[in-house]
């Protein structure tokens, strides 16, 4: 049996958090000498971490909603703060997504990044460790520390290796997210004063009056909505995405945005279920604005990275919609209790699948833009045209990922959107109708971009000189293509893992926390 592997007895989560961080320090120490050393070391560490994270999947028990691979050590005993790690069906897939993306990012920057290579790679390894820590943290202060610490490497990545307006973008990114997080800190400290413990699972059990729940909900909302990002606090994202180097964009889109959505699932829904129920119209409204309005905004973009950034916001709208539609479904009197639970599960699972799938697809699209940018140093759609003529292999991938982004069946993009729309119909026809607009809008802005960039006659002389993707680029695009198609055709492994946890979460949020 695979589950008997002796490796599973290791403190896996700690390894996943600290191995990249220590590796990052090792890479930093090679700085200045020879960059040729830094790259293989970083790749080796990221691959090792990826394989270690697969052990989480192998050893994972899908039958229980309890936290698994738990580790708990005293950290700050004066205030009952523990180094407390553990994963459930929601965080485990996200950890694997993180380790997977980091490998790709390190490959993507292989030849492109030529200045301060060691610092660049180390920053990504630090981020990997910190992000895994955020997903695995079960102590609110540990979570907060890692959540904030993560900003620093990203700040540096955008600021040093970014584009022309990188400084504006990176300071905006930092201050926006910092502002959101500090309000969450106040909420966490308040919860501590009530629970006398910083364990997130203890927070879940707290009885809180509705008025106070609303304040806590809004404080969490400030932190998570900025990260997701939800309209109207999304404006940092296009700036950060456009100015970040390709690797930075991939990590931002694939993982960082997911942290906000994860925060809703881990904190907002279970700690303040009544406030979430009261304010579900608010989140659903913002999500629909993101889906529809931001979809239109994406349509008008001239810059490929900006277009994908807006498309990310639009797709993340689906995620938050999937989470909060659950409250509308549970409140629907036409449904039997059991049917409501099943449909609500579908909505939340749809949201989570959408998170994972968007991680692959947006990451892939940013890598595609990166491939073009590395060659022509332009992100403007107008500077390209007829790329398929000179880069046929690249065109194949670009079209596949474009299709996936528009939610074509048989790609992973379809699964999440379909589940969310399906469950929305049980709540309200018009919500579902507006959400379904994405099928048109998403296809419109993605395919229109693909048409202008990839197809048609060769746009100009520069395009004519383009060379097709090399083995390294083919490799990472192929891996992503396999992932997109696999989860599109057979999402069961993903759904199985999260099913028990999501059901447990729903039971939890269906109960009132008001006395």
């Amino acid at each position, binding site marked *: 049996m695979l589950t008997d592997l002796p490796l599973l007895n290791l403190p896996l989560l700690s390894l996943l958090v600290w191995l990249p961080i220590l590796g990052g320090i090792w890479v930093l120490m090679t*700085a*200045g000498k020879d960059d040729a050393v830094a790259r293989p070391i970083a790749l080796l560490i990221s691959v090792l971490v990826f394989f270690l994270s697969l052990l989480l999947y192998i050893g994972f028990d899908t039958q229980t909603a309890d936290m698994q691979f738990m580790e708990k050590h005293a*950290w*700050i*005993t*004066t*205030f009952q703060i523990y180094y407390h790690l553990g994963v459930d069906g929601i965080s485990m897939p996200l950890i694997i997504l993180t380790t997977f993306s980091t490998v790709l990012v390190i490959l993507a920057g292989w030849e492109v990044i030529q200045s301060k290579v060691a*610092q660049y790679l180390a920053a990504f390894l630090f981020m990997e460790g910190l992000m895994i820590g955020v997903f695995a943290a079960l102590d609110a*202060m540990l979570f*907060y*520390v*890692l959540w*904030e*610490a993560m*900003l*620093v490497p990203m*700040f*540096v990545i955008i*600021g*040093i290796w970014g584009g022309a307006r*990188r*400084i504006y973008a*990176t*300071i905006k990114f*930092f*201050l926006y997210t*910092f*502002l959101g997080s*500090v*309000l969450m*800190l*106040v909420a966490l*400290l*308040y919860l*501590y*004063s009530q629970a006398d413990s910083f364990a997130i699972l203890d927070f879940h059990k707290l009885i809180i009056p509705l008025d106070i729940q609303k304040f806590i909900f809004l404080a969490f909302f400030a932190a998570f909505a900025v990260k997701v990002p939800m309209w109207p606090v999304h404006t940092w994202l296009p700036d950060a995405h456009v100015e970040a180097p390709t690797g930075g964009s991939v990590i931002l889109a694939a993982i960082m945005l997911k942290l906000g959505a994860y925060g809703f699932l881990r904190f907002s829904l279970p700690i303040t279920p009544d406030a979430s129920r009261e304010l579900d119209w608010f989140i659903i409204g913002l999500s629909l604005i993101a889906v529809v309005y931001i979809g239109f905004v994406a349509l008008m973009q001239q810059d490929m990275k900006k277009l994908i950034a807006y498309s990310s916001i639009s797709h993340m709208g689906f995620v938050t919609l999937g989470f909060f539609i659950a409250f509308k479904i549970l409140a629907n009197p036409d449904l039997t209790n059991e049917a409501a639970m099943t449909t609500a599960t579908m909505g939340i699972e749809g949201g989570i699948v959408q998170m994972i799938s968007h991680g692959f697809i947006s990451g892939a699209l940013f890598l595609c833009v990166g491939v073009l940018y590395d060659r022509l140093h332009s992100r403007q759609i107008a500077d390209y045209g007829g790329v398929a003529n000179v880069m046929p292999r690249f065109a194949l991938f670009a079209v596949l990922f474009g299709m996936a982004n528009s939610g074509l069946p048989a790609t992973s993009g379809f699964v999440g959107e379909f589940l969310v729309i399906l469950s929305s119909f049980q709540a309200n026809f018009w919500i579902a109708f507006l959400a379904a607009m994405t099928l048109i809008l998403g296809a419109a802005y993605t395919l229109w971009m693909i048409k202008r960039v990839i197809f048609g006659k060769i746009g100009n002389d520069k395009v004519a000189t383009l060379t097709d993707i090399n083995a390294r680029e083919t490799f990472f695009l192929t891996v992503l293509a396999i992932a997109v198609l696999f989860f599109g055709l057979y999402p069961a492994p993903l759904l199985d893992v999260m099913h028990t946890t999501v059901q447990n979460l729903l039971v939890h949020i269906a109960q009132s926390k008001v006395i």
Partner: protein
Amino acid sequence: MNLGFESTDIITLLPEIFLLTMACFILVVDVYLPEKLRHLTYQLAQGTLVGTLLLVISIYPSSLTLAMDNMFINDAMGALLKLVILAIVFVVFLYSRSYLQVRNILKGEYFVLGLFATLGMLIMVSAHNLLIIYLGLELMSLSLYAMVAMHRDSAQAAEAAMKYFILGALASGMLLYGMSILYGVTGNLDLAAIATNISDADSNKHTALVFGLVFIVIGLAFKLGAVPFHMWIPDVYQGAPTAITLFISSAPKIAAFAILMRLLVDGLSSLYVDWQGMLILLSILSMATGNIIAIAQTNIKRMFAYSTISHVGFLMLGVLSANQAGYAASLFYIITYSLMGLGGFGMILLLSRVGFEAENLDDFKGLNERSPWYAFIMLILMLSMAGVPPLLGFWAKWSVLNQVIQAGFIWLAVLAVLFAVIGAFYYLRIIKLMYFDKSEDRTPIEANMDMKITLSINGLIILFLGLMPDMLMAKCLKVLQVLI
């Protein structure tokens, strides 16, 4: 008053007596030292600090000890603060040496004045009587005024010294006036006696007491640099030679915190409802003014001055919670702050060299290319000041916020974090200059090995204590449990 004197009193006062004797000794020796042996003064001064530090450790109190007819107190909080002050002054001397040397102000006076100021601080920390508090305060302040003026050819320094002296004297006057009212009402100078007297005072006395309290709080706010009594800080920080600024900004703040604790907590704790309101106001104003005005600064010393003001605002959050855990949080904050300030000014000293003061923000441009290691140390310092985890500065802010929330002032905590976000901007700007901008200056960084090592340790301690803050937090809480 019965001036009883016992031989055990000498033991309690031993660190101060040793420091005083050595300061006088160095003063005399320095006069006869030939120029090439001048480094002996430095070594003697450092030796004195180490000796005093060892003496403080050797008489570390297991319980509260009073000496000299209750005028002098030796308790765990005092001992901890003394250790921190002595260690900080040691590092200050170490950082300052080469800076002062190349500017030709490395004279015996610097060390003697520094030691006398330190003696003043130790007395402030251990004072248990209004007069002794004042005595210590003046000994410290007068030495500091003279230190600021030491660079006598510099018009800026003379101006700074003048401002410092006038405003400092005004503040001392305020404090003294408040004390005299307190004495008038209670008929006592002893803090414990005042505390007992007030706790069963009738309401007629209350008005007079609050009247006196206002002046005491004003005096303390002046010394700490809380808005609206902060005007001297930017000018003095900018005008004084950087090495002196380093001194003024670190250890004296701890001593000022100590008398704040002695006066408000030891002496006037039953008036906490009254001083709580005053501190809330001072705290909000300081956080707001400090953080907002710092954004507009181009001179890094001035920027640090405003940053200090905002830190004082945060520091007060803990005290105004008016309970042991809150005081412990403030104690933790002041220790953290002095470590960060030490490092910050240390970096300016490191970048300064003959004929060049690294005073402007632009002097930090491209530091990552000139020296990745010191850029990293500065990164740690700036992020820690901004309160980004997992650095020590975060836990300091965290501690006081936690106490403010436990005390029920959630609105105040929300205000505080919002100002912290505003403050983050100017710290980020330094990081931006170091990491994202190109350097105009290619001169390699030259400094003594001892300075390089100490500065590196200074930075790494902030990182290490940020990862493992439990020791220091527990210590701060423990020393305050002995108190009261």
